[in-house]
């Protein structure tokens, strides 16, 4: 055969060979970029275990964007770093979308300081509030103002952007009202930037998800936060699991639509998710829920416990046991 014919035949064979007859079943996931690492790990392992027969796609449109698509029926699963809000509940109800709310892991919000900072051994929620509340804007600019025992040094604050679930949760937990915060701090969507900021400035203090602290332990120091019981607890997977690291532990969720659950591929994916979330969440440095929690979640799926237990509003300091035993509403 001439070399042209050979190449053409080879090309055709390659193309034909790559066209294995796959059933085009795709599980569509979208939503929060905070939950993304966990869902990605699950999707990757799930696809491998199914040898490519079921495909999973994951987007990062944000929790809000994810819910919008979810309530239009365009996605099967929505990643959410906060519970579904009233507005979104109404949108789903209007479109006839019923859903299951499944907590998948905990994210411990970690308060960090520069490793060279020697004067902070622990912080109370009241002290954090003094630093972050709206009234502090322009007023509280020095460590001494937060607590007289602290040195006279400028207060450099780093935190999440005001559109993120992290921001909402932190402000609710620390200041008492979601989104209630001073405006003059260094904000960034990219937590790596915050890591850089805090690690370069001796007087800096910031907050972000535990995973970013865990990966940068050489550059940062985590601050033990005094919990409800009065004990100072450092963020750690065990402390989150037993509920002692509060109020800065927040659950992250996936929402699955009832209609999608009727598709066998989605059902398999969600079951796989619940069975493997514990190991995979720890791998990506989130805190897994206790094993019982995942079993209860699968139980809820089977018993068709639809709806959200949060009533469309954010809540702080929820323990996993209370979450699982509450009544759900659509």
């Amino acid at each position, binding site marked *: 055969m001439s070399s042209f014919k050979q190449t053409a035949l080879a090309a055709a064979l390659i193309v034909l060979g790559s066209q294995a007859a796959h059933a085009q079943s795709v599980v569509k996931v979208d939503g929060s970029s905070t939950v993304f690492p966990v869902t990605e790990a699950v999707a990757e392992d799930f696809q491998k275990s199914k040898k490519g027969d079921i495909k999973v796609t994951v987007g*990062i449109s944000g929790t809000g*964007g994810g819910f919008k698509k979810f309530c239009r029926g365009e996605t099967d699963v929505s990643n959410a770093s906060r519970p579904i809000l009233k507005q979104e509940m109404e949108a789903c109800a209007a479109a006839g979308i019923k859903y299951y709310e499944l907590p998948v892991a905990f994210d411990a919000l970690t308060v960090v300081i520069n490793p060279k900072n020697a004067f902070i051994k622990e912080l109370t929620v009241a002290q954090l509030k003094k630093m972050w509340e709206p009234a502090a804007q322009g007023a509280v600019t020095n460590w001494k103002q937060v607590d007289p025992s602290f040195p006279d040094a400028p207060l450099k604050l780093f935190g999440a952007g*005001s559109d993120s679930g992290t921001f909402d949760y932190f402000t609710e937990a620390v200041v008492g009202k979601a989104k209630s915060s001073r405006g003059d*701090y*260094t904000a*960034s969507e990219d937590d790596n930037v915050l890591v*850089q900021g805090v690690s370069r400035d001796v007087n800096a203090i910031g907050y972000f998800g535990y995973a970013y602290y865990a990966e940068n332990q050489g550059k940062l120091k985590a601050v033990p936060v005094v919990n409800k019981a009065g004990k100072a607890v450092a963020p750690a997977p065990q402390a989150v699991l037993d509920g002692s690291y509060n109020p800065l532990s927040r659950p992250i969720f996936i929402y699955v639509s009832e209609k999608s659950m009727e598709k066998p591929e989605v059902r398999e994916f969600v079951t796989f998710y619940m069975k493997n979330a514990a190991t995979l969440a720890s791998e990506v440095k989130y805190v897994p829920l206790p094993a019982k929690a995942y079993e209860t979640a699968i139980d809820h799926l089977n018993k068709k416990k639809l709806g959200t237990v949060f009533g469309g509003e954010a809540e702080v300091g929820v323990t996993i046991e209370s979450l699982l035993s509450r009544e759900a509403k659509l």
Partner: protein
Amino acid sequence: MTTSLSGAAAFAPLTISDRLAKKALRNSKERVIEFVLFAAACVSVLTTLGIVWVLVSESYHFFENVPIWSFLSDTMWTPLFADARYGILPLLAGTLTTSLVAVVVAIPLGTAIAIYLSEFAKPAVREAVKPFLELLGGIPSIIYGYFALAVVIPLLQLLIPSLPGFNMLGAGIVMGIAIIPYVSSLAEDAMRAVPMSMREGSYAMGSTKFQTAIRVVIPAALSGILSAYILGISRAVGETMIVAVAAGMQPNFTMNPMEPAQTISAYIVQVALGDLPHGSIGYQSIFAAGLSLMLMTLVLNIAGHMIRRRYREAY
């Protein structure tokens, strides 16, 4: 019809109906083509109408809740906070300041490069270098953002010790560098197209290359150069990622480039891809912000158009 090779009848006249028929066909073909081209030009108008419609229809709900007067005059923009304030001035100031810094960097550098490449450089150098400059525009803006944050701003902090870690100066400078290809490539194209005869006349009178460039080539290529400037400025105003990463994400009502601030486009991206529920007033604020940006660029563009009109030279 007869054809003959004698001079007068070399082009045998067609009968009237044939000739008219051919002309009519030509005309109708021409008309069809003209219409097709017109339709292409209308796509841009349709795009603008589409954008305006999207922005206005969502902003309408926003303005039902926020009075226009406070939108235009309030100096704080905190729509996502519990105590929401909706003044567009901080975002406008941020956009203007960063764009100004970018333009101050891009236009002199870009023009100097364009003049150098078209008038001074050897053709081999020119052809080798031009693709590199155009690749400057191909580097993803996220990389530029991190470059600004990790390299440019620390360098600036060596010069100005009190400079904060996020600021508009670093972001603006890097934005200017990213825009250089717009200015230099298009301006250089315009200058190259000036006929050699004009330059030769100038050299014949004893001018140096620089004098020829400034006094002959640039005025002749002015229309193209101004278009390049306008495209560059437009890109600066609409740039998102570089400012989002390097200028900080906090709206700040200041024109001082050494402070952090947020631009309109960075704000829009922050919210559109964030965790807010779509349909909430915080989400709709991005459309109001986008509409303000479009109005601002419209004013700048009309001004630019008038200036170009006055200075266009025909040769």
